[in-house]
């Protein structure tokens, strides 16, 4: 007979063996049979691969002290649709505060992530916090802040994911974003946001701040002057550019209509254009300056040569009608430009023939300036093979040729700096500007054209631009706008471009206004006052006194 204690111990032993067997089988399944699966799971938990973008770089003005764009934190709301604990409460809340998200939630019911709204206002954040619904979560994201709203068209903006959309933010996106660094982190279940070890897999490039040639104070001053002139003449569009002709640095680039990059909720995309570079216009008489430079360079005219301007406001050359504002008789070529006589310049341009096209393209018209600004309009110069009998006449006083305001500033810079067509610069890279080995025009021709421009300021259409103690060399232009295939005599473009000099100091200023409202308006009454006010603000700001 078996003793009961032996039976009991036998049962206990058997149960223990059975349990150990079950454990062993389980261990076999975990360690051997499903080892690959569990190893992968453990790897996932212990090793996390993270790609981290450096913060988007700041943008500074030329002083290096004034920020033009920087980062700021904003709050976004999200939920995890496939893990909602209280879907009714969430739907009710969304219906009353974020109705657009209700339909989105219906569509994305099984998704693991859904944004309710990004970049929330402080009021919206408060509403969410007060509702205290655990399913609705908040996260902080980085966004951009632009301290100088009047530089909006130059700086541009970023999209909701902080990628450049317009302006410098777009053209320098790679520089501002940097390259992400990929890390492998060793963690355990309790380490939370901490890690035990970090290894760098792919080393990225940190973003570095960008310094622009823009002078923020001058940008603001020019913007205010432009705003006032546009308000005075009930005009909707205008631009101002200030450029250093020796380096090509753009100190001010203002265009209206514009936009505030901090307020992009109801944005008109047309207002995001930097019209100084994205729009090209037939600017009229400003081009007489370039036609005159071409004529002087080719030796087909001298400053003192008397040109017969027919003493009429309208005359016919080669059967083509030419209108001019004032009737002039025989006047010197210097006065032809100063008085902006269309008949006189057309007579001289006929001596140039096809060479006028070569000269316009040599001065940078019809091609991009090299600024690398998004959406630059290269403008247009009518090619000789497309010419009609009218073309040479039109080209002499700024029709059949279109240019953006930057190209005009660039061509004037070429006159100012001794004949070098310099590439305009918005970014300060510390490099010295590279000049071609030979100037494009001879010193004699450039001195001649400067004399004509000075004469235009002292005796011609730009008298209001004069400043005692400074050498101001200007040219004005009033051009009819092309509307539905015809030149409209009421709707005009008004331009005043010039060089401001004193000792070694040189600046090129271009002031432009489109469609001013008023009777008998010319560039002398619209664009020259703007030029004068901007120039004055610039001289005071730069302490050239």
């Amino acid at each position: 007979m078996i003793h009961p204690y032996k039976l009991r111990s036998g049962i206990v032993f058997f149960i223990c063996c059975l349990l150990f067997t079950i454990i062993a089988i389980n261990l076999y399944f975990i360690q051997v049979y499903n080892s690959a699966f569990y190893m992968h799971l453990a790897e996932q938990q212990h090793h996390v691969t993270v790609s981290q973008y450096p913060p988007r770089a700041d943008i500074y003005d030329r002083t290096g002290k004034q920020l033009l764009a920087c980062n700021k934190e904003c709050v976004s709301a999200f939920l995890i649709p496939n893990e909602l604990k209280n879907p009714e409460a969430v739907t009710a809340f969304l219906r009353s505060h974020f109705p657009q998200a209700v339909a989105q939630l219906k569509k994305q019911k099984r998704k693991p992530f859904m944004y309710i709204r990004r970049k929330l206002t402080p009021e919206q954040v408060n509403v969410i916090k007060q509702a205290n619904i655990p399913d609705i979560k908040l996260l902080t994201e980085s966004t951009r802040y632009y301290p100088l709203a009047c530089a909006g068209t130059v700086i541009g903006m970023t999209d909701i994911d902080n990628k450049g959309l317009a302006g410098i933010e777009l053209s320098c996106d790679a520089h501002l974003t940097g390259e992400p660094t990929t890390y492998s982190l060793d963690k355990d279940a309790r380490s939370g946001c901490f890690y035990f070890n970090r290894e760098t897999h792919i080393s990225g490039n940190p973003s570095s701040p960008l310094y622009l040639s823009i002078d923020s104070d001058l940008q603001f001053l020019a913007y205010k002057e432009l705003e006032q002139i546009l308000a005075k003449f009930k005009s909707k569009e205008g631009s101002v550019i200030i450029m250093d002709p020796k380096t090509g640095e753009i100190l001010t680039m203002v265009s209206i209509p514009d936009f505030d990059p901090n307020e992009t909720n109801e944005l008109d995309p047309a207002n995001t254009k930097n019209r100084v570079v994205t729009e090209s216009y037939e600017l009229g008489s400003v081009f007489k300056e370039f036609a005159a430079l071409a004529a002087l360079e080719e030796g087909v005219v001298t400053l003192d040569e008397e040109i017969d301007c027919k003493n009429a406001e309208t005359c016919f050359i080669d059967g083509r009608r030419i209108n001019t504002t004032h009737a002039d008789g025989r006047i010197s070529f210097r006065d032809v430009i100063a008085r902006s006589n269309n008949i006189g310049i057309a007579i001289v341009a006929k001596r140039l023939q096809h060479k006028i096209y070569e000269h316009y393209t040599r001065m940078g018209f019809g091609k991009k300036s090299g600024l690398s600004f998004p959406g630059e309009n290269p403008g247009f110069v009518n090619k000789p093979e497309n010419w009609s009998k009218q073309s040479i006449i039109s080209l002499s006083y700024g029709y059949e040729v279109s240019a953006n305001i930057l190209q005009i500033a660039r061509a004037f810079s070429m006159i100012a700096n001794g004949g070098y067509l310099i590439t305009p610069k918005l970014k300060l890279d510390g490099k010295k500007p590279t000049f071609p080995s030979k100037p494009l025009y001879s010193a004699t021709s450039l001195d001649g054209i400067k004399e004509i421009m000075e004469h235009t300021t002292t005796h011609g259409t730009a008298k209001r631009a004069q400043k005692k103690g400074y050498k101001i060399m200007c040219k004005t232009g009033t051009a009819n706008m092309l509307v539905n295939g015809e030149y409209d005599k009421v709707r005009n473009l008004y331009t005043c471009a010039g060089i401001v000099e004193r000792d070694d100091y040189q600046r090129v200023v271009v002031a432009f206004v489109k469609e001013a409202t008023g009777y008998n308006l010319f560039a002398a009454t619209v664009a020259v006052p703007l030029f004068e006010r901007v120039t004055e603000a610039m001289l005071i700001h730069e302490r050239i006194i």
Partner: protein
Amino acid sequence: MKRSLFISIFVATHLSFVFLQIHKHTQFIKQSFSKQKNERLLASLEVKKQHLTQELYIAKNHNAIQEFAKTHLNMAPVRLGQIKKVSHHDPSL
């Protein structure tokens, strides 16, 4: 006696090596956590700095300053003709 002493020293040395290794690892993790805490603190301070920078620029807003100067201080824009350059050698000074 000699043998037991040798074994004791051998074991003690190995134990101390093991202890030092564990201590080193603990210290490493401690320092790593401390570094990570500092990094997080730095990131939060960076956010604060951004916030303060934004507030500073709102306060420095050109439009607001111009408006304040015009309305509260009755200031007007200076014209070029109103500026007189004064030399240090000017006898009238």
